[in-house]
């Protein structure tokens, strides 16, 4: 059985299928950009993209992504290391403070813009509501996503 993570195909051994997906990503693949905040799917720190949908990974199992395409924050920038316009906008707009929610926020913003490249501020707020940010008050995150819509 296989899954694709950040564009790379990964063979999954039978015994790994029941493993917690977030643990697999962080501990087995060492992709530590995906954060652990609550482990009950309410804070959004562990958000990843599965087939371009932003979803939490903390209560999923590895078998939930068999045959699917997963993207973590590590797979988001361009291959040459240049930042994606959404990531650059997060920096430019001051949308980052402690950075713990940032990977989940960036991926959630991307999933929205992928589906709707002209969202209203209210639509952006609704889309990022599953991800908690305690530092920024959200305003500059909304600005960053709004400013990047033109690239989608």
């Amino acid at each position: 059985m296989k899954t694709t993570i950040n564009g790379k195909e990964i063979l999954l051994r039978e015994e790994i299928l029941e493993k917690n997906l977030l643990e697999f990503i962080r501990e087995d693949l060492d992709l530590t950009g995906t954060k652990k905040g609550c482990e009950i799917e309410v804070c959004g720190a562990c958000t990843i993209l599965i087939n371009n949908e932003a979803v939490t990974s903390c209560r999923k199992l590895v078998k939930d992504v068999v045959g699917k395409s997963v993207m973590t924050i590590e797979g988001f920038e361009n291959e040459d290391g240049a930042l994606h316009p959404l990531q650059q906008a997060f920096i430019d707009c001051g949308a980052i403070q402690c950075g713990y929610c940032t990977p989940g926020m960036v991926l959630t913003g991307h999933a929205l813009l992928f589906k709707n490249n002209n969202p209203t501020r209210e639509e952006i707020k609704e889309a990022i509501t599953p991800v908690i940010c305690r530092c920024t008050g959200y305003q500059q995150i909304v600005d960053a996503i709004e400013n990047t819509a033109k690239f989608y």
Partner: protein
Amino acid sequence: MSERKGWRNDGYAKVTGRSRYADDMKFHNMLHAVPVYSDHVHAYIIKIDVSKAEQSEGVIRVITYKDVPGENRFGQIHKDYYMFAEDRIRGNGDVVALIVAKTREEAIEAIGKVTVEVEQLPLLLDPEEALKSDSILIHEEKKTNIVTHHKVRRGSVEEGFKNSDIILEREYKTQLIEHSYMEPESSVCIPRHDGVMEVFGSMQHPFSTRRFVATLLGKELSEVEVKGTPTGGGFGGKDDTAAIVCARTALAAMLTKHPVKMTYKREWSIKESYKRHPYKLNYKMGLDKSGKIKAVECRFLADAGNYTSVTPWVLWRSTVQCCGPYKVDNVKCDALGVHTNNIFTGAMRGFGSPQVNFAIESLIEEAAEMVGLSPMEIRKRNMVMQGDETITGQILENHTVNLSNVFEKVQTEIGFEEKLKKCSHGKSDTDELYGIGIAISYRGMSLGAEGKDYCSAIINAQPDGSVLLEAGVHENGQGLESAMLLILAEQLGIKKERIRYQCSSTSTIPDGGTTVASRGTIMGGGAITKAADNFKKLIAETLFETLDCTKEDFVFENDGVSISATGTFYTFEEIIQMMFSNKTYPYAFGLFQGPEVSWDEEVGKGNAYFTWVYGCQAVELTVDKVKGKVKLLNAVAAHDVGKAINEEMLLGQFYGGMVMGMGYALREEVKTKDGKVRSTNFHKYHLTRAKDVPDMKAIIVESVDPLSPSGAKGVGEPTNEIMAPAIANAIYNATGKRYYKLPIKIEL
């Protein structure tokens, strides 16, 4: 590409997920530790049985107080915190043991195998009960449950009330709230080849952590090196508990001789970590017919919970700011913190001001209505202006007193006067009631008479012209390192790209005090400015003969030095090379000592803080009179920041503080039952989410403050301390009903 110019030194790492927090670190042979709690709240411990846990798969060691080589009891003020419970459990968050295992899963598996045999004690949960002479004592050796009692005695309140035409008496209550940093506590400790314990962790203050670690381990301070990792939020909450997590992890590393990691689950974090103090505030205010406040008498009772933490300092700030930013000649204030069996309380953004501001800014509007003045007019008649005296006798003359300025700016921006006329006051044809509300504050900067206030910085230029900067303050996520870099770049007239911020270590720079009290930028920036002055002086003194000019001719600008007498320009690289050629290291140390403060504890008099900041916030909202739901429509804030260093980061402090204040006003509360926390995770602790937040407007007000060498002042806390009263006032103007308790639940 973007018109916005935000910049942070860690921006790239944070947007790409490469920023390495404590839980992201791994070492060979690393073991994992987890805490064990009891099911009890108040009990004598008869026996802690770890034998079954020790037999559990993968378990290497189970640690209890008996294994502590140093001092088990510690605290920043009173040494009453037991890092491992000994003979008594004083709260449900007390840790009785630590399990160290090969994997985290195995450690967690063994938690249930520790048994604690106890003899139950009566619960003390009500702070008023704690004051009674026959109350059970939480710490018997103290002979009282009173942790602290601060006072202000100014003029005569009896006289003041005698000369008052109107007297109001009101009681307010504020709730227990959780910091909710998104990153739970985490630490990794490594026993080093030279006997030093190396400590990595998520924390606010590496030096405070070092004191906790060295105390528990029985080591010298020099034998512990604490290195901060990127901290996933603190808000005041990563001082004691985060330090204690590091100390326990270090003990596990010392006893097992392995690197050990301990990362908290959210449930452990909420159960064990200290919170913001719930207050009961009783106010009596007298005013004359013109609306002038004649007297204020107030009593605050704060639940300190089972340990002291920084309760005396928190209550002290409440005392100093008990009358809000108003001139009052007759004041009697008593602020008490008491022990109970509830979860202990300590520092949180605002530090004793959010509670007081909610009360006083609600009360002033009630007073206005009784006197027949507008909310604007009553504030104008009482607010502090340039040269006025605070209630503790401090003359506000050495900086710009900007209160009326920020107050005017917010009113103009939001159109306060016009909108105030449109408020529903409980009556509307639709389901929606509309209201607008405002609140103001002043705030003493930094620690004030709470503690010694100083900070140092080191500038170390390298032979290639790059520069290493270090300051004794710690990045908490707010962008402090970036602010420090920008201040140095400006002071030396060099490009910020030359400078790298040396990640702080307790072994390389003197203790600069904790990153609390909105003091990071003002104190760190002050130290850097002093270091830059020394650096420039050293260069001028070393090179003036070589360059055939005077020491006064050196102008540091344009990424180099211009010699004013000759007009010759040297690049920074050339200057640094000349320094090395002259066998002089381009290295400077700078120390910033906070200007003198004073305090007389008996009467509550003195120059409490060396400088002050001023703020105003207003909010518009609707209340659904059928569902009782409050919808925020708009929020505006103006704060005097001294000087803006990094605009986008500064705006982030505004918005973040305002939104945290919205949660304080409307939804956040740690629920407890019989001393146990019931809001165990974010499904039961309701934080403000993006859809709850209106678009906000931030007005940055700058002013000259000679007391801050870099010109910058703090802003993290001011932005968080007046949103709740602004919302309370708006809800009153919408519904016609005044709420005295946070969080506000609309009564239908």
